[in-house]
Every structure is written in C-alpha cells, then in structure tokens.
C-alpha cells in the first residue's frame, strides 16, 4: 500500500501549473517521462457587452451573461520529449435578463500530443522548439446555434508550434497555431438573405470558420511558485458571418485579443493552488468578457 501511494506520488510530482483552454491548451513546459498531473479548476466568465462584428453592443434582453466552468485537465509524459494532454470542461451559461434558459452540460473533449522536437542549451539557458497536434470533439449534442451555447459543436484539429526559452527562473514562450474547425449541422434551415448564393435554400449544414492563434507568455517559474502574464490573439482565417438576426452562430467569424495572468503556489507535497485572471481587450463576434479562475493541481 505504502509503495503504491509512493508510486502515485511519483507519477504526480508537481513541477508546473496547468493552463486551461481559455488561454490556449498548452504551455511550453514539458512534463517529463512518465510524470503526470491533474488539475480541477473552476472558472467564471462574465460579459454584458458583446461584439457584433467588431462593434460593441449591449442587449437589455440579455443583460449579463455568465459562464461557469469546471474543467478537468490532465498531462502525462509518454516520453521525455512527448506529452499527452487531455481536457474536458463542464459548462453552465446563463443570462441575467430575458427568458432564455440557462444551458448546462459537458462541452468538448480535447486530446493533444506535444512533442519537443529540438532543444539547445547555452550555459544556464535553454531554448526548445515544440510541436503539438490536438483533436477536439463535442462530448454531447449540445445546442450550438444560440448566444448562450456551450460551444460551437464542431470537431476541430489544432496544429501549433512553440518556441520556449528558459533561463534560471525566467521564461518566455511564443506559440503560433491554426485551428481547423469542421462543419456543424444546425437545428434549422438557414433563411438569411445573401444575394451571392445561387440557391437561396441553404441547408442545415454550415461551416465554422477556421482561426489562427498567437500566444506570448512570460513569467517566473520555480518549484514552489509560478507566475506569468500572457497575451493571446485569435483571428478568423476563413470567411465568416457577423452576429445578426437569423445568422447562424457557428458561422460567425470569431476573433479576440486577450491578456491575462496566472499565479501558482505549491502548498504541501504535490498539491498546489492555481489562480487566473484574464480580460478581453477587443473582439469580433464574441463577448467582451472577464474571467476569474481557481483550481487545485495534483501532480508533478
């Protein structure tokens, strides 16, 4: 029994905090061979202004939209240079005004492989180059065509590359990614007026625009404390629509610029606490939201 506990503790020995999907699924820190960690975080995100296209808009019939999420996030080192990352959030969204029902349920499960392809050492410093490939799919058939939708409902492939520099406690990570979003089927036939369409009886299947993503993150990381600040920019790559009457929500071109920060403190042994904050500076067809999160991390 003692041995087993020790084995689990070895598997879960804490090294770094975990970052949930809200600011990109992954950071530049490799987990290490056969090391693992698991995080449970709670987050709350609110907005009372959303962007129609890029124009901020407030709807008195919607009031303030609140999204609460419990996210389960795990990393396991398949090898010294290969990690498996899995994430699955349970989400609840509700509006403070109007008569729209709150929506609640599992959103999308994501599995990703992160590969440290190269690393260079210069004295005390280290520069690594990483690649990652992820796949996301909805856990259940949630409503996707609604302002309070849990998600877009698409199956996505996420390819990204990262440059990660570390010198002592200081680190700097830059990453660039492309998220390929698959088509989704709506509950309804689209009736929107679009003279460029030869056949006006559009179907129920619509495309979700792909996006590109850039994240820069810097901070200070030791065994006991981790702190960072980051900036994230998502830009629609494929053509998309703007929020408007009758326009399907999944076809909207979504983009945003967000900044945030993370603080991690190791309490005892392999147990740590994680806090996060982020805010939206500007956006496109998305809520101008502010997010607070907190979580427990077990592992190495």
């Amino acid at each position, binding site marked *: 029994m003692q041995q087993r506990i020790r084995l689990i503790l070895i598997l879960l020995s804490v090294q770094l905090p975990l970052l949930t999907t809200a600011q990109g699924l992954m950071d530049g820190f490799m987990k290490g061979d056969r090391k693992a960690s698991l995080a449970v975080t709670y987050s709350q995100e609110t907005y009372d202004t959303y962007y129609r296209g890029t124009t901020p808009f*407030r709807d*008195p*019939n919607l009031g303030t939209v609140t999204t609460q999420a419990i996210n389960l996030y795990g990393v396991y080192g398949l090898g010294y240079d290969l990690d498996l990352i899995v994430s699955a959030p349970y989400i609840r969204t509700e509006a403070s*005004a*109007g*008569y*729209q*029902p*709150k929506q609640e349920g599992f959103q999308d499960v994501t599995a990703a492989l992160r590969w440290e392809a190269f690393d260079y050492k210069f004295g005390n410093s280290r520069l690594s180059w990483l690649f990652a*490939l992820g796949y996301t799919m909805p856990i259940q*058939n*949630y*409503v996707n*065509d609604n302002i309070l939708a849990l998600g877009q409902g698409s199956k996505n*492939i996420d*390819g990204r*590359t990262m440059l990660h520099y570390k010198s002592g406690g200081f680190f700097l990570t830059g990453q660039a990614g*492309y998220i*390929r979003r698959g*088509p989704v089927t*709506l*509950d*309804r*036939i*689209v*009736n*929107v*007026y*679009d*003279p460029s*369409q*030869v*056949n*006006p*009886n*559009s*179907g129920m*299947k*619509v*495309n979700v*625009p*792909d996006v590109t993503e850039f994240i820069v993150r810097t901070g200070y990381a030791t065994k006991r404390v981790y702190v960072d600040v980051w900036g994230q920019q998502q830009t629609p*790559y*494929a*053509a*998309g*629509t703007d929020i*408007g*009457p*009758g*326009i*399907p929500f999944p*076809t909207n071109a979504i983009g945003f610029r967000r900044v945030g920060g993370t603080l991690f403190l190791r309490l005892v042994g392999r147990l740590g606490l994680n806090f996060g904050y982020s805010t939206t500076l500007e956006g496109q067809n998305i809520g101008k939201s502010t997010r607070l999160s907190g979580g427990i991390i077990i592992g190495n």
Partner: protein
Amino acid sequence: MTYTTMVRNLCLTLLLAGAGLTGCKENTISEGVLPYFEPATNDADGGTWRTVLLSSAATITVSAPTAITSDAYQTELTSVKNGLLTSTPAQNTAVNYWGQGGVVRWNQIARQLVAKYNTAPIFNDATGQYLATDPNAPVASLPFATRLYALLGAAQYDALVVAWRAKYQYNRPSLNRQGLVTRVPVADVPSYPSEGAAIAETSAQILTYFFPNEAEYIRAKATEHKQSQLWGGINVASDVKAGETLAASVAAVALTRARTDRFSTATDSWTSLKARAPYDVTWQSLEIPARVPVVPLAGRVKTWFDSTTVARLAPAAPPATSSTAFQTALAEVRNTADSRTRDQWATADYWNDGQATYTIAGHWNLIAEQLLQEDRQNELRAARTYALLNRALHDVTTVGWQAKYTYFVPRPSQLDPQIKTSVLIPNSPAYVSDHASQSAAANTILTYLFPVETTWLKKQSDAAIISTLYAGTQYRFSIDAGTQLGTNVGTLATNWAKADGAK
C-alpha cells in the same frame, strides 16, 4: 497572391498535411442543388381554369401574333438562333438559374426579401427609444408576408391562365417544335405569349409594391428572367413582349386590390381594442423595453375566400386565466420548459420561423417548392399550388390576428416568468397559435395537391404544430384552436380548388 500569403499558405499546408488537411477555401453555408425537369403535364385546358383576381381569363385580351412565316417572325427567330451560338457564360448562368422554374424562383426571391425585412425595430441605447421604421423598408411580419405571398401567387396564377388561354388560342408552335433545342427542359406548349415573361413582369410589379427600396434589384432580376427566355432558345422577342403586356394588365388588377384591402390601416392604434378585451389578464410585450406589436389590426384585412364563411371559422373564446383549464395549460408549458429535451429543442428551433426568416408561411412555401419540383409541375400548375396555399395562409392569419387582438391572451412567460423559452418570444398575444393554424392549413392543402406525400406532410405539420409548446411560447388550448382553424380554412381552399377546372 502576395509573398506573405504564399508563405502562410505553405506553412499551413505543411502543418496540416499530417492530418490530411489543407487550408482550402470553404463555403460559409452549404447549398443543395435543384434538379432540372421537363414538366409532367402541359395542361392544354389551362386557359379555362378559374381565375382568382380576374372574373375570367377572357377579360384580358392578348393580341394575335404575327404568322411564323412572316419576315418579322423569321428575323426574331434568327436572332434567337444566333444568340444560342454566341451565348456568354453569364447568359448561360442566367438560363440555368431561371430554367429551374420562374414561379419557384420568384417565390424564393419573395422569401429572401421577407427574410431580409423580417426584423425587429432597432433600439437606440443613447435615446432609450426604438428607431422609426422607414415606410419604404417595411417590417415583413407574418401578416405582411402572407399578404405578399398570396398576392404574388394569385397574380402569377391569373397571368398564366391568361397566357395559357392565348397560347392555345393562337397555337404559335414552340421553338423546340421548329428545330431549335432549348438549353433547359421546358413544357411543350405554344410559345406565344411567353409564360416566363408573364411571370417576370407580374412578380416584379407585385414585389416592388411591397419593397420599394428593392425596386432596382427586382427590376434587374425581371430583366434577366425575360432575357433568359431568348438566351435559352425558349421564346422569341414578340413572345416575351406579349407575356409582359398581359402581365402588366393582371398586375394592375392585383395592385388595385392591394391598395384597397385595408392593410394600410392595420398599423393603427390598438390600445382601444386592448381596453375592450374580454379577458381577465391582458397581453404585454415582454421585450425590454416594451415594443408595440407590428400590425395589430391585420385581422381587418380583406380575405381571399368568402369573408362571411371565413369569419365564421373564428375560434371560440379561450379559457380565463383563473380557470382550471388555463392553469393546467400553463403548468404544462412550465413542465415542458423545465424538462425540455434536446430533441424538443431541435424541433422548436427548426420551426422557430422568427426574425430574419421566411416566416412560418414562407417555411411552408419552401416545403411546397420541394413537392412541386418532385411532382414536375409546369409553371401554371406551380402558380396554382402557390396561389391556393398562400391565399389560405393569408386568411388563416387574418382570422388568427382577429383572435389575438380581441382576447389579448398573455404569453406563458408573462404569467410565469420562470418559463424559459428556447426561441425568442414573438411580440404578439398568444391566442391562437400561428404555427398550428398555418401548418394545419398547409397540411390540408398540400395533402390534397400531393396525396402521395400524406404521411410525410402529416409528420411535418405535427412537428410544426407542437413546436411552440416545446419552445415554451404557447399553450395547448391555443395550439388546438389554431389547428382547428387551419384545418377549416384549408378545407375551404381545397373545396375551391376542386371546382377550379384543373384536373
């Protein structure tokens, strides 16, 4: 392609190659493809069918065409032949587009315009007021849309009955019979006057009346439609001219009716009606801030079928809010909303037909489109289908609106704010259900016209009828009364059709 774009695309291609993907361009919304067909019947007796707006087809005289042996005709024919040899890709696209059916295309255009103008007034955050609507950009609410679809259908149908009468009266042979091969399949009917031109001119005049701001777009469409008859080798210039002329006469009759059908006063004040409402709790707008209903007096608009008979079909008074019957109905809405399944949500969403859609009537026009294409209906028969369906849907709306603004029954959420709706709550009183009345009427008529599809149509209308209960916007008694009203008006329409001369 700039250098940076090239590099970006190359990078993306490499990045995604592992997953078997490339960053190619995608359509935002996928589209279906309509089939081409040669109409199943020619309806040589179509000129004798009972007209709607005109007392008979004979009231409009179509002048005799020149003989096909005449120089004038031969010049026209040569011009069409030469045109076929030198046709441009743009012309071919137009021929293909209109080749799928003029009546169907104009119905689609009408639906698109309805969807475009089917919007809520814009709220100005700064002033706390709704912006006034431009009279040239009217709100295409359900009463507006049904009136438009009905008038369009009736005018197209009458124009085609007149055209068919002249076709078989003068018997100018079709171009296919004179050795030409049309670019798209057409009905084997005499070519004079052109049915395409008749549809184009009627539709353009009717739609411009409803949407003055779209005049230019509509005119361009009509011109292209008429020209496509020449480009496709379907008609010569004098066929088109004759079709256009007869259509203008029919459209004039239709527009006279439109100007005197009392719709112009349907937006007048409704507060006195509300004060008189024989109901214990009256409807209030649930919008923030409250919004006035769009056309509260649409119940006064002139009906297409006999007004006395239609008025007799008005639903009985709804149960008072204090009654057990009402409380049971309200509790059912609450329970359904609280335990709404994903499937129920999907049904409610499919039949939402709210803002920026064709409206519920337009949704049934879309369904009719599929059926008449499967049935390979010629232009005249397609127009008859739409005219019949839409006149009934209009009259159903008229009676339904009368009930709405007599009783002012509140929406369920007004009485129980805990009732959350999966669609936006329509800004009109509840009783009777538009979805139930429209769908029951459409089902009755389409089942009569397309008996093969009885089972499928029943399934569609059942889903449409119950969708508002799933959405949380309607009571069962409202749905039942709507279904009854729709079935009765539908029967009235099918009885008309049984005696209209079409077999």
